[in-house]
């Protein structure tokens, strides 16, 4: 395994993407907007009292964290994997003497670095202006970081196997749009998951989407504890493992079918 080459690829992608930073800043701005809207709406609705167990300052904390978690786990890479397959430039991936997975990982890391340069200062300023209120403890911070790592793993590989369907159909991107909508509804963006109506809440707890964004924040804020915490981590691990296994299978099946057009 040529990990040194992989690291060089990661570094070169992020340095070259910094040249186009205004484009990524605009993208990152767009991704920040839905959480910001719901931050304003929910904290306004809570007013001086509380709603669903959160005060308006706690809603602000929840959604500021959501902006960060969403940005860290969102893989914009997977939107380009389909093009790479269709246009045949995946040939370059296959020819390089290192695992092909390094290529999407490189743009994943590059995208994270470039968008964080924009998102971190903005959310710090928002935090200073809006006075969020967060009650947590060190062990919850540790657990939340663990949940965040799994959330990234799950969201990346879940999007990756959907994108790899481009080996069979030219329209796999539609599934990524569907995933984004489900994340919006079921992962704690439109409202914290525990505040959803019963039917949606049941769907959120079973499907993988809550574990891509909302779950780490719920852990940090102490909204899941005891047995629920145990079950939550179990479900998250299962979905993450499933995502990795499915993408490996789809990758091998797709590669056998791939005819290397163009390039």
């Amino acid at each position, binding site marked *: 395994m040529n990990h040194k080459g992989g690291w060089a690829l990661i570094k070169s992608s992020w340095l070259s993407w910094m040249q186009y930073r205004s484009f990524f800043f*605009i993208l990152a701005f767009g991704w920040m907007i839905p959480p910001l809207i719901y931050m304003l*709406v929910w904290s306004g609705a809570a007013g001086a009292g509380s709603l669903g167990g959160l005060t308006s300052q706690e809603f602000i904390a929840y959604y500021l964290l959501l902006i960060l978690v969403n940005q860290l786990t969102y893989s914009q890479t997977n939107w380009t994997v389909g093009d790479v397959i269709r246009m045949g430039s995946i040939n370059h991936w296959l020819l390089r003497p290192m695992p092909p997975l390094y290529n999407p990982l490189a743009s994943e890391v590059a995208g994270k670095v470039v968008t964080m340069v924009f998102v971190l200062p903005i959310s710090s300023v928002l935090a200073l202006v809006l006075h969020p209120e967060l009650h947590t403890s060190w062990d919850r911070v540790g657990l939340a970081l663990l949940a965040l790592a799994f959330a990234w793993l799950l969201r990346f590989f879940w999007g990756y196997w959907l994108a790899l369907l481009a080996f069979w159909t030219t329209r796999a991107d539609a599934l990524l749009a569907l995933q984004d909508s489900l994340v919006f509804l079921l992962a704690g963006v*439109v409202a914290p998951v525990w505040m959803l109506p019963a039917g949606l809440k049941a769907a959120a707890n079973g499907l993988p989407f809550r574990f891509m964004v909302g779950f780490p924040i719920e852990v940090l804020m102490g909204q899941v504890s005891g047995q629920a915490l145990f079950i939550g981590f179990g479900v998250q691990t299962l979905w993450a493992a499933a995502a990795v296994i499915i993408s490996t299978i789809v990758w091998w099946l797709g590669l056998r079918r791939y005819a290397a057009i163009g390039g």
Partner: protein
Amino acid sequence: MVYLRLIAQFIRASIMEETSYRVNFWINLLHSLLNLTTGVLGVYILFAQIERVNGWGFPAALAVLGVYLTIQALRNLFIGPSLDILAGMDGEVWSGNLDFTLVRPVNIQFLASFRRWHLFALFDLILGLGVLVFAVVRMHEALTLPNIGLFLLTLVAATGILYAILLAFSALVFWSPGVMFTWIFDGVFQLGRYPLGLYPGWVRLALTWIIPVGVITTIPAQALSGDLSMNQLALILLMSVVLVFCASLFFKAALRRYASASS
């Protein structure tokens, strides 16, 4: 009416172009339905937790969403697709293809604003109007003829405001050709999903006077349900005329910066 005949020709050409990609129909349908579902559930989930926010109830907020969807459909029908040709890495300003547009014996602003149509947006238009009518009926307001007239008047004015903003944002490409400036506005425009009254005071002011997204969606909804004051009517009409005028001047001035592309 040369201009109307030209528009008819542009529409015909766009139909021919769009119908050659048939699979896109299903993808567009999926996107429309996702947009509708996430929009309606976004309002529903909020009002499942709390009955009224700052005097706004579920049907009134749903009416605003209906106007938002309607205006978004009008944007995607022709304003957006036409103006998008200018911007970005493969846009006319960057590539220098604007030369071929400039030499045509028609007003350039007219060409830039009406030349490409995305007729599937008519379906979104119907969905938006459907949400709006459903909401007004739920409010137990009768749909009277004067209210419908006022609604159509304010809707035209609102579309004018949206057009003026998008035109001004598009004109910025003459300074920086690679940047998708309209995407920035699209992000802010999403705030129009909810009534202005749901936001804190400073956001309300910004959305009325700096980027009048709130005016665009909230005022037509109030017109249809008969809650429109004379001041609001005057505000939206005046704003529309002034902004369209200023944006046209700005576009003309920006155009003078165009120096083609060197080959």
